[in-house]
């Protein structure tokens, strides 16, 4: 067990895993936009849930007030996180649980693996959890000889397909029914009960196949692993909201329950849940209320798990919290509404974001949690047209475009940041030297009307010689779009020549 607390400088981040080795976003997206099946699957799924969410939200007369309340509860909690974390440790311990502190993914994985080994078990059942995806828990357990079974339907599809999740709520959104049937047929037998003979792609049949396959795992499992949507500080209560009931099985049947939870998941009181239990389901699945809400407080004799462990995960969150503009990303309740409205996500798909957090929220979360050193993380802040649809639907009012622009500044210009609990001054990322020079030159010219006019006249008078396609970096425009025709004279010349059109023809 570690005693390193978030908020205090931890050990040097030498134990952190290497930066993720994914291609930059534009390169990954280049493939994805050409994949017609993927585009079709994503378009269908995101447009369906988008419309449903809009309807579910429109039903609530005080939505704007709920959104503001959610924002304020989260901001308050984050401002006093040190105090609330200690309160959680006290209340969870008093209720019979054990609290562990993990500064990074490696430490969290080691804590969980050791806890599982102490039980003598070699397998665990898992509730869908973003935190355990973030730290790569399944792979870490596998390396220790422990098999982790995902029990959420979509996570099961991803796991059986040796795939990566591409959406926060529906990790297999990139798959259609036919693909899922094929995965079930070929893979289920390797993990346990095989798919029924003659399985078709009817949703009811697919769900039944998963139910039968998973049931034997639920009944056998002695260890369950979960995340949590919320941790209520005043009582040490953990909350998981879900749709399928697999979570309830994992949370109640095993003897040992281990929950890995990001430190930003705390809410101070039960009353605060009133807000989020309204905004989360409507934003996420477009339901008025999710089918299963499981809450547990420590352990209870003769009912549910007899041992409960809470692993509080930092993994870059304290660094993120130190950033005035970027910290709002920690308000996120993982509803995925921003993914479903994002036109970029819809076309590039979740895998292009190179993280378990795809879409707009991923584009601001990953470069903060992991830093901007890798190619993928340095490219994510640019993976947006800044259209603002994400901010509009966010139930905790995260101004994602604002954070994206802030992170672009960090990538392009460098500057102060916090990494591994230490204040550092980042150097600009590679590949922005030419851009920086262009921006500086443009600023110089644009601060001088005479220079701007000279440039405009040059462009106008050489217009007959303009090529249709541009070489080098210009191809990024002319590869798919024609250039606009350049006029014979800029507006300002016309204005001066005609005195605002008062003289001569307009």
């Amino acid at each position, binding site marked *: 067990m570690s005693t390193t607390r978030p908020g205090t400088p931890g050990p040097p981040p030498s134990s952190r895993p290497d930066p993720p080795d994914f291609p930059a*976003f*534009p390169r990954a*997206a*280049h493939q994805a*936009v050409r994949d017609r099946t993927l585009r079709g699957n994503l378009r269908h799924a995101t447009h369906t849930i988008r419309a449903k969410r809009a309807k579910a939200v429109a039903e609530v007369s005080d939505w704007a007030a709920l959104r503001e309340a959610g924002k304020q509860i989260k901001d308050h909690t984050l401002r006093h996180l040190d105090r609330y974390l200690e309160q959680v440790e006290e209340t969870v311990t008093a209720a019979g649980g054990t609290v562990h502190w993990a500064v990074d993914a490696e430490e969290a994985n080691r804590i969980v693996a050791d806890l599982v080994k102490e039980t003598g078990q070699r397998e665990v059942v898992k509730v869908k959890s973003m935190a355990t995806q973030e730290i790569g828990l399944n792979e870490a357990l596998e390396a220790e000889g422990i098999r982790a079974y995902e029990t959420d339907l979509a996570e099961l599809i991803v796991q059986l397909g040796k795939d990566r999740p591409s959406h926060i709520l529906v990790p297999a959104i990139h798959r259609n029914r036919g693909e899922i049937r094929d995965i079930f047929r070929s893979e289920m037998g390797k993990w346990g009960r095989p798919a029924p003979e003659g399985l078709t792609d009817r949703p009811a049949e697919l769900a039944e196949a998963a139910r039968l396959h998973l049931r034997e795992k639920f009944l056998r499992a002695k260890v369950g692993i979960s995340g949590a949507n919320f941790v209520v500080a005043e009582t040490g209560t953990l909350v998981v909201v879900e749709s399928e009931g697999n979570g309830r099985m994992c949370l109640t049947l095993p003897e040992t329950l281990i929950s890995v939870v990001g430190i930003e998941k705390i809410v101070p009181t039960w009353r605060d849940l009133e807000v989020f239990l309204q905004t989360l389901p409507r934003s996420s699945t477009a339901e008025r209320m999710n089918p299963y809400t499981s809450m547990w407080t420590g352990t209870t004799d003769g009912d549910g798990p007899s041992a409960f462990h809470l692993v509080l995960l930092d993994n870059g969150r304290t660094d993120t919290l130190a950033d005035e503009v970027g910290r709002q990303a920690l308000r996120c309740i993982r509803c995925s509404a921003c993914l479903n409205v994002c*036109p*970029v996500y819809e*076309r*590039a798909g979740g895998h292009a974001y190179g993280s378990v957090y795809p879409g707009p929220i991923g584009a601001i979360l990953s470069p903060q949690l992991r830093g901007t050193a890798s190619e993928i993380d340095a490219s994510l*802040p*640019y*993976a*947006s*047209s*800044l*259209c*603002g*649809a994400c*901010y*509009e639907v966010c139930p905790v009012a995260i101004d994602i475009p*604002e954070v994206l*622009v802030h992170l*672009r*500044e*960090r*990538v*392009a*210009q460098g500057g102060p940041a916090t990494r591994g609990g230490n204040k550092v001054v980042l150097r600009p990322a590679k590949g922005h030297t030419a*851009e*920086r020079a262009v*921006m*500086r030159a*443009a*600023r110089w010219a*644009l*601060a001088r*009307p005479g220079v*701007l006019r000279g*440039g*405009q006249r040059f*462009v106008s008078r050489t217009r007959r010689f303009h090529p249709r396609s541009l070489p080098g970096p210009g191809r*990024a*425009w002319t*590869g*798919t*779009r*024609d250039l*606009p025709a*350049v*006029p014979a*004279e*800029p*507006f*300002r010349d*016309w*204005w*001066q020549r005609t005195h*605002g*059109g008062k003289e001569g023809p*307009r």
Partner: protein
Amino acid sequence: MRVALFLTCVNDTLYPDTGRAVVKLLTRLGVDVDFPTAQTCCGQAHYNTGYRHEAEPLARHFSDVFRDYEAIVTPSGSCAAMVRELYPRMGARARTEGRGDTLERVLAPVVPKTYELTEFLVDVLGVTDVGAYYPHRVTYHPTCHGLRALGLGDRPRRLLRAVKGLELVELPGAEECCGFGGTFSVKNPDVSAAMGADKVRNAESTGARVLCAGDNSCLMHLGGIMTRLGVGMRPVHIAEILASTEEAPSA
């Protein structure tokens, strides 16, 4: 009222017709328009690409040029949003960085006086029928900054509906971004073009011959895709439609 036209650097250089249309329209409505020739650029491209410090002198320059006018009108939703939404933010950031409130104070006067064109017409002049004539079938794309940052709502559509001879048809998926996004269009060209192509196909499906919007930068992107795809439509800025009359029709 002393009204200044902030045409924007893109319109000044590439779309002087839009500028002439704004002058013609506002003059017809009895507004005395000035075009201060010291104007250049609001700094949006710098700011949104991550060069906030390069945008600051441009914002200061904007304020120097425009601060004494009673209203500043611009035919661009995104440049209006830059001034109204991001200038205050830039000033506040400078303050939190320990650089005092100078930038905030310099920029403050222009923020509430800057209007996007349709906003100025409907809210300040109080007109929706501007006496225009445009006998074409038109579909309207609300650009993102006008729609979400400025909250233009149905103002542009109300203006278009009052235009004589104009048949306004709804654009499917109207509120979706066209994919331009400033430097996004060249940093992520594949996704940008895919979004633009979907927008153009949606516009084409309406049977309209004209795709209208309030931002020429978005229309430059969409127009470039239209000619590349060989779609029989053309992009037209809303100012050019509203300026068009029976006596002096625009194409």
